[in-house]
């Protein structure tokens, strides 16, 4: 029994997924998209451009749900497009969480 438990524990890191089931490969892609494609307007370092900064400090006052909604639905009348056709809600939630935690902040 113990060897079974050990085997299961050892297997867990392989193909590790985040809490909402996004693979490690996909999170790498999402970070690339964030920096290069969101970064078109928000800057690769997330310090802003045509769009506002997305550093953890800049996002401090924003609720996760409001950020999720802006990303999925865009902001009509501004240059922020809806990403609902490109990203799943889970993927957006992962991005929002990582942004708010400062995972992508430049030192």
């Amino acid at each position: 029994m113990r060897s079974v438990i050990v085997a299961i524990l050892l297997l867990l890191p392989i193909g590790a997924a985040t809490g909402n089931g996004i693979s490690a490969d996909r999170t790498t892609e999402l970070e690339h998209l964030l920096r290069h494609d969101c970064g078109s307007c928000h800057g690769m370092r997330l310090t802003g451009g045509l769009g506002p900064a997305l550093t953890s400090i800049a996002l401090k006052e924003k609720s996760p749900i409001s950020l999720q909604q802006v990303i999925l639905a865009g902001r009509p009348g501004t240059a922020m497009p809806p990403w609902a056709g490109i990203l799943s809600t889970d993927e957006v939630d992962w991005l929002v969480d990582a942004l708010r935690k400062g995972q992508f902040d430049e030192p």
Partner: protein
Amino acid sequence: MNRSALRQFCGIFFGLLLLPGAAIGAQGLRGTGDLGVVIERAAGQIQVISTTEQATLATIPGLGDLSHASVVFSRDGRFAFVFGRDGGLTKVDLLTAQIVNRVLQSGNSIGGAISQDGALVAVSNYEPGGVRVFDSTTLELIADIAATHDGGLSKVVGLVDAPGNRFVFSLFDAGEIWIADLTTPKEPVLHKFSAVGRQPYDALITPDGRYYIAGLFGEDGFALIDLWHPEKGVRRILADYGRGKERLPVYKMPHLEGWAIANRAAFVPAMGQHEVLVVDTDDWRARATIPVHGQPVFVMAQPDGRYVWVNYAFPDNEVVQVIDTETLTIASTLSPGKAILHMEFTPRGEHVWISARDDDRLNVYDTRTLERIATLPADKPSGIFFTARANRIGL
């Protein structure tokens, strides 16, 4: 000197030329007319390349945040002025491959221009919104033009040089176009046009420096000013090209450049549509709409105007199309690689260099055969700028 000693001498001499860090041209004179700059956006570096040798001559680090970057050249073709996202204005000596001067002149910047006489470099800033003008030799600040509107400052876009030592630019948030006359550099004289249209996002000036055309994001159409007759004000062209069609989400703003003009027409990106719009440059009436692969970002005519090349916004950014300017149809569709960000033609147009960001590669194509003839490695390459821009109005 006997032959073997001569051979030895040559070997050492040419060997020295290849020493890393050897300045380009240091061991022998060379011109700059066949040189160019490639932005490596993630690394904050630029490459200096030669279009004759199809090779990287040097990589220069230390240019800050180049996640969006633009370049103009000094009138002698020796120096590049690199405008970076972080407000950095960097002067680079192309022959010594050195940064000779750098100022962090704002918080956030989108591009710049060099004056008709080459004495002034202007930068268009998002933060603080406005245009700052610098001495091109010393980078000393000469003038600071705040883009004031409704008690605030507007982001500035679409900055170009114009004859008469003027700069023309658009105010994204204010919906205005300003002409700044820098005949007396420290005292710019401003001529402002308001209500030109909602959210001008970029602009071009025709190669003869006569017409300034700003694209609008907030509504359909383009705002046009005839710089020979600014008293006539701003005219809206292509006002209803959307024709009630719903816009697609715009993941990347199109970019307008003077190379939109070919064969008596302007070829411009449609906003939020998979279309290139063709406008007659005699009467500025719409001539045609060309359906294309994706939302165009750059629509660039070859130097001979025979074909116009188009690249596209995410997520359709792996394709380049070539449009015949006579038939106004697509002549060819190419797949140069992943995330095609920019294209640049050699001065007489025999080749085009195309950056593929996600392949970490530059691709050189023969414009006649449409075959890829060379590739060069590059770290997340974006913009490509050749020194031939040094003596072109608006570039």
